[in-house]
């Protein structure tokens, strides 16, 4: 009885209070779901591959275009891109770049999207790019029927559709045509930034986007060359096993080490971070600062303060805001260091050219890279399995420095050593002496195949062919 009485009093009070409550930003009755059927035609666009005032093509983001309707064109192409020095990869793209251009909009904006499948356009060297195929567009920022808007279109076809951005955030877009894994791993992804209707609650001096992704590549079976370097193609086995060869920011191995993002002491940087995967998690961290604010999924309503790292699964995103405390080069890394060792490193620097000594300190210098496919494979294997015990030119660790290994031992000895270290330790005088020298820590048998051993040796030989001190592994810590 008392409950009923309380309710009788409380309900009118709550109703009376309602006009004082802030409006619900997520009131679905105020969201725009105006459906308009997608249109597919055979009209081919022959102009620019990417068009629209709302697009940014690099890490530096353009300010929000104030127009409430954003017309965006992102055509699909097949082209060769360089994902690491000497690694020319046969990619599939949106807007002729990897990652695709970033779309920037605001809650309530209407996006008018158009895409021509131009994968059949003649390439400068046709045999280097994949055969034309069907493609599609899946915008995570949209709430639409996938069967209508995200349908695959054939080469030469054009699809147009519209949607309204109802939620703020950083949203992935990608090709959704089977096998989706292959389309994403070949480069078909990008970001849509949707600002809150009233903008962000802070004022930033710089805005950048960082898209993390993995590549899974192997030398092309046909041994094609691009400008003298081997052509690389998608490695389906590695892809399905989730064993990337490169993990990168903005499409390039160590790309933002060579071209750091600029910031000045005292400035607040707003960084939009998207991990597109397709299969790995990112533990995004910046050496030398703390994230003042982290807005999970890029929505200020999902806020954390004072974070060191933000964990992003595939297709997760966050806005991280931080201060640049003093002059220096602040190092962006995926703190899963196996990923960082594959290229997920970049700099935010107060200098146009960051001083090498800072990088030396963190052992993350963008170093010379072999181009021979076997040496590249050996390098990747070495960096993922051996760096805990061996340095490259950094002196002894648990085991000997690998620099100079091919000068200290001949290829036959090294081959036997990598193949059967436990037998060598019983029968070979040099091996026995090494065991003693290195505190009786034995070299473990890694069960390497003959092909893998050959790749290691190629890498070791390449190291010893470089000027002393010029080669560093891509992994490191601090």
């Amino acid at each position: 009885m008392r409950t009923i009485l309380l309710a009788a009093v409380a309900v009118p009070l709550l109703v009376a209070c309602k006009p004082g409550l802030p409006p619900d930003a997520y009131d679905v009755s105020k969201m725009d779901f105006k459906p308009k059927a997608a249109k597919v035609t055979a009209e081919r666009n022959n102009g620019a591959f990417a068009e629209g005032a709302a697009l940014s093509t690099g890490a530096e983001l353009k300010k929000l275009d104030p127009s409430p309707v954003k017309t965006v064109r992102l055509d699909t192409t097949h082209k060769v891109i360089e994902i690491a020095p000497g690694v020319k990869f046969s990619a599939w793209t949106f807007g002729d770049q990897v990652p695709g251009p970033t779309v920037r909009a605001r809650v309530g904006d209407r996006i008018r999207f158009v895409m021509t499948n131009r994968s059949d356009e003649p390439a400068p060297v046709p045999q280097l790019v994949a055969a034309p195929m069907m493609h599609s567009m899946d915008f995570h920022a949209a709430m639409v029927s996938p069967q209508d808007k995200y349908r695959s279109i054939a080469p030469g076809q054009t699809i147009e559709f519209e949607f309204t951005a109802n939620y703020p955030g950083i949203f992935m877009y990608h090709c959704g045509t089977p096998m989706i894994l292959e389309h994403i791993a070949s480069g078909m992804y990008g970001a849509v930034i949707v600002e809150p209707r009233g903008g962000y609650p802070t004022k930033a001096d710089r805005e950048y986007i960082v898209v993390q992704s993995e590549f899974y590549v192997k030398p092309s079976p046909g041994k094609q060359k691009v400008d003298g370097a081997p052509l690389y193609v998608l490695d389906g086995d590695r892809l399905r096993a989730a064993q990337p060869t490169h993990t990168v920011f903005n499409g390039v191995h160590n790309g933002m080490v060579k071209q750091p993002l600029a910031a000045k002491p005292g400035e607040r940087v707003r960084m939009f971070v998207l991990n597109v995967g397709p299969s790995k998690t990112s533990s995004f961290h910046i050496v030398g600062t703390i994230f003042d604010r982290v807005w999970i999924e890029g929505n200020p309503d999902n806020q954390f303060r004072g974070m060191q790292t933000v964990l992003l699964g595939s297709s997760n995103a966050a806005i991280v805001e931080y201060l640049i405390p003093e002059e220096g080069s602040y190092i962006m890394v995926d703190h899963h260091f196996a990923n960082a060792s594959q290229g997920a490193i970049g700099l935010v620097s107060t200098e146009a050219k960051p001083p090498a000594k800072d990088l030396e300190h963190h052992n993350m210098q963008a170093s010379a890279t072999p181009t021979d496919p076997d040496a590249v494979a050996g390098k990747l294997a070495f960096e993922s399995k051996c760096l805990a015990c061996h340095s490259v030119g950094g002196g002894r660790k648990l085991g000997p420095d690998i620099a100079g290994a091919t000068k200290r031992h001949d290829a036959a000895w090294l081959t036997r050593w990598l193949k059967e270290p436990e037998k060598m330790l019983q029968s070979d005088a040099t091996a026995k002496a090494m065991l003693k020298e290195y505190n009786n820590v034995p070299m473990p048998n890694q069960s390497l195949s003959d092909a893998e051993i050959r790749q290691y040796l190629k890498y070791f030989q390449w190291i010893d062919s470089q000027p002393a001190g010029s080669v560093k592994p891509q992994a490191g810590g601090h």
Partner: protein
Amino acid sequence: MKTAPIAALFFLAGEAVACGYCVEDKIASTYDHAIVTRALARGHHVAFFHVDGAPVARRALEEATAGVPGIDKGSARISPDLLTLSFSFDPARASLLQLNTQLDRRLSARKASLTPLRIMEQPADLKTVKR
């Protein structure tokens, strides 16, 4: 008590087909641009089918299309995962309906049949099949 596991299985099954569910996804799984270009240049058409009924092995589908008058030799493309079959054919020798009927007859012993999804009669134009 049985409901929960059954519901879970149903949910998982739905998840399994979520990617590749759309008609265009099925078409994409067997779309071969070289076949399409070659066929259309000769005035031939390319047809895309969904494989209904009991699971049919790739080899059985290849055998079913082999030697059928009108179907271009070597043009069959099969996606066992998305249950899709495509091939190019000469419309002057056989209509799509005739080919569909003939292939259904060949597959009937395996308790399978074909549903036409789209036909391509000219470049960049995937038409819905009207029966």
